């Protein structure tokens, strides 16, 4: 459902990647954005929430309108582009000489964006005192999400963490205590099997099978593994930590605890009341609540851990990047980025769309999210995970999407097949490593 990439999108990305390869990264410069001014300026803002109908689009339009109302000299053209298309569109527009001034780009594209689109670190173009003043109240782990090689290129914008949603009604029918949701994968397996035996419904679906591998990376990390080495030179999803996590998934499948569903239908299965538990993005909360109304009781728990090892949740979502090279437009772009990630911005983003606030000080503040958080206690597990958030790591090089594809194909084969898991993952790792950029 979310972040799915279609064949057509992939083809388009490939086509535009060809075009993108025609322009080398712009030479580094330390030019700062212009000082604030009242001169008229127009900027373009590519945003994927605008490309959807409903809450995402409405909230974004509301924020843009609030931003421009008190400063009529800044005109913001919000350009709707779907998340699967946005990078391809940015590349095409770069080639066409219509570079967007601000773009909302998915975290998995971070390395490609930095190396190929000539994006400058925000910390280089924004005066240090302004940067410190704006990011002061942000969760440090959240601020790191758009960072590469120690520099923040994109300011984390809309993002979520993995949440274990569960159908408390089915829990009760199966004799499980809905107040004690499973905290480990072993407990998840046990609960899923009991639930299946008692209700004939599906047990659990861990939503880790997408090419957007943020959740899979969280699973690997939780078991001491990684998809990519810390020095970003080696693909490591064939090493023991990751293999151990996949063995757990295989065990869920073999035991019958794992629902036999496609990733794209898992959310619908949960909403229809035919699935007991689903580990997925917290942003589905509103859709799940709508579907559960008068049908079943929806609850949420933190990401399960592997035994005593603490779970290490990762993030999904996107960051805001300033792509403009014109200091005056950069200033307007920075002002927009500041507003979108301000206390007010995150109040709207969290309460209306369902993403997480990068600022925890607004959660209980009655001026901001206080009332909303009291009415929506389900967001608490999600907020708790925010402080120990791990970065969704982007594969490097221009083959990064092929690497992600190899990874997920191998995971599918290893989890749902009968072959030797370590061998499948090791061979896939070798194939992926061959696509990594040469040092």
């Amino acid at each position, binding site marked *: *459902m*979310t972040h799915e990439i279609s064949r057509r999108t992939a083809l388009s990305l490939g086509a535009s990647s060809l075009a993108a390869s025609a322009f080398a990264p712009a030479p580094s410069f330390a030019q700062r954005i212009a000082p604030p001014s009242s001169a008229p300026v127009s900027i373009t803002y590519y945003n994927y929430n605008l490309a*959807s109908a409903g809450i995402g689009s409405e909230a974004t339009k509301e924020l843009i309108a609030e931003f421009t109302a008190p400063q009529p000299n800044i005109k913001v053209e919000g350009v709707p582009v*779907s998340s699967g298309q946005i990078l391809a569109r940015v590349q095409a527009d770069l*080639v066409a000489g219509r570079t967007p001034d601000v773009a909302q780009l998915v975290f998995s594209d971070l390395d490609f964006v930095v190396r190929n689109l000539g994006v400058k670190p925000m910390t280089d173009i924004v005066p240090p005192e302004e940067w410190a003043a704006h990011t002061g109240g942000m969760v440090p782990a959240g601020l790191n999400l758009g960072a590469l090689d120690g520099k923040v290129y994109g300011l984390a914008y809309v993002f979520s963490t993995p949440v274990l949603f569960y159908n408390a009604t089915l829990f009760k029918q199966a004799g499980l205590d809905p107040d004690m949701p499973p905290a480990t994968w072993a407990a998840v397996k046990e609960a899923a099997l009991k639930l299946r035996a008692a209700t004939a419904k599906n047990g659990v679906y861990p939503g880790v099978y997408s090419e957007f591998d943020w959740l899979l990376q969280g699973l690997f990390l939780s078991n001491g593994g990684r998809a990519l080495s810390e020095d970003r030179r080696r693909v490591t999803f064939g090493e023991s930590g990751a293999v151990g996590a996949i063995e757990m998934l295989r065990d869920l499948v073999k035991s019958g605890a794992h629902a036999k569903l496609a990733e794209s239908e898992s*959310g619908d299965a949960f909403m229809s009341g035919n699935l007991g538990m689903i580990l997925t993005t917290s*942003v*589905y909360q509103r*859709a799940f609540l709508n579907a559960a109304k008068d049908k079943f009781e929806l609850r949420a728990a933190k990401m399960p851990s592997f035994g005593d090892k603490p779970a290490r949740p990762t993030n999904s979502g996107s960051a805001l990047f300033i792509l403009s090279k014109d200091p005056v437009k950069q200033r307007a772009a920075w002002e927009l980025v500041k507003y979108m990630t301000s206390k007010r911005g995150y109040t709207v983003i969290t309460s209306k769309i369902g993403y997480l606030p990068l600022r925890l000080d607004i959660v209980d503040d009655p001026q901001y999210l206080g009332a909303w958080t009291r009415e929506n206690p389900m967001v608490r597990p999600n907020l708790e995970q925010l402080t120990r958030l791990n970065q969704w790591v982007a594969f490097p090089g221009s083959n990064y999407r092929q690497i992600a594809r190899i990874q997920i194909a191998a995971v599918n084969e290893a989890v749902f097949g009968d072959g030797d898991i370590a061998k499948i993952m090791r061979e896939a790792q070798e194939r992926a490593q061959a696509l990594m950029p040469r040092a």
Partner: protein
Amino acid sequence: MRIESRAAALRSHTLLTVLSLLSVLPLYWMLVTALRAPNEIFSTTPWPQNPSLDNFAYILGGVPILRMLWNTAIVATLTTIAQLITALLAAYAFARWKNKWSQALFALLTVTWLIPAQVVMVPGYLLVTRFDMLDTLAALVVPHAASAFAIIMLYQALRAFPDELIEAAVIDGAGHLRILRSLIVPNLKPALASLAILLFITSWNDYFWPLLVTRSQDSAVIQIGLQMFMTQEGNQWGPLMAAASVASLPLLALYVVLQKQIVDSFLRSGLK
């Protein structure tokens, strides 16, 4: 004997009735889902418990769906007309003027049909940007004004056209345009109608190119409008089905009116 043939007829009619119902079922389910409340979307009851038009009200209020339908109709109609005209002229030229390059030229044209649209999308986008056509309906029509598929189809039809008739017209002093207008078009009406239907449907369903060259909802087409209900925050099945119902109405109406020609055109082109 008669009883046996009646039994056979009954069997085949029963089978066809079942197949017809199966064909209609997705359409029925689309409409029923459009009438369901959010917490009823996944219900398997054959009709909604509390039918409501909320989803239709939502799509008409939240997204300029009617404007998108209008844009799609304009774009599909203009593209079809443009492709028919260019294809007719090109096919006539290929059929009438034979020289040593004809076959090679035609082969080249055929090869262009095999190039995936995505490959030429970025150069096409750059051209559209250079001509300052971005976010206009012209950007959706002009780059698709000629279709290799249409030329190939019409060339096949023209090859079967008797040369003697054309030669007689030439002897009578008719020029090329006159021959096309008075002789070929009236005689190729079935082929042209079939082709027009195929081109219209293809253009109506086009998604990817419009996605690239439109920047605002007001210039978007219906296929983009449908995609808007598949959001990061979960698919909005109710509104999506309502929008799909509205979007399919014009094509459904077209199908009801031109049923025979549409079936013929698919058979003629060997496409499904």
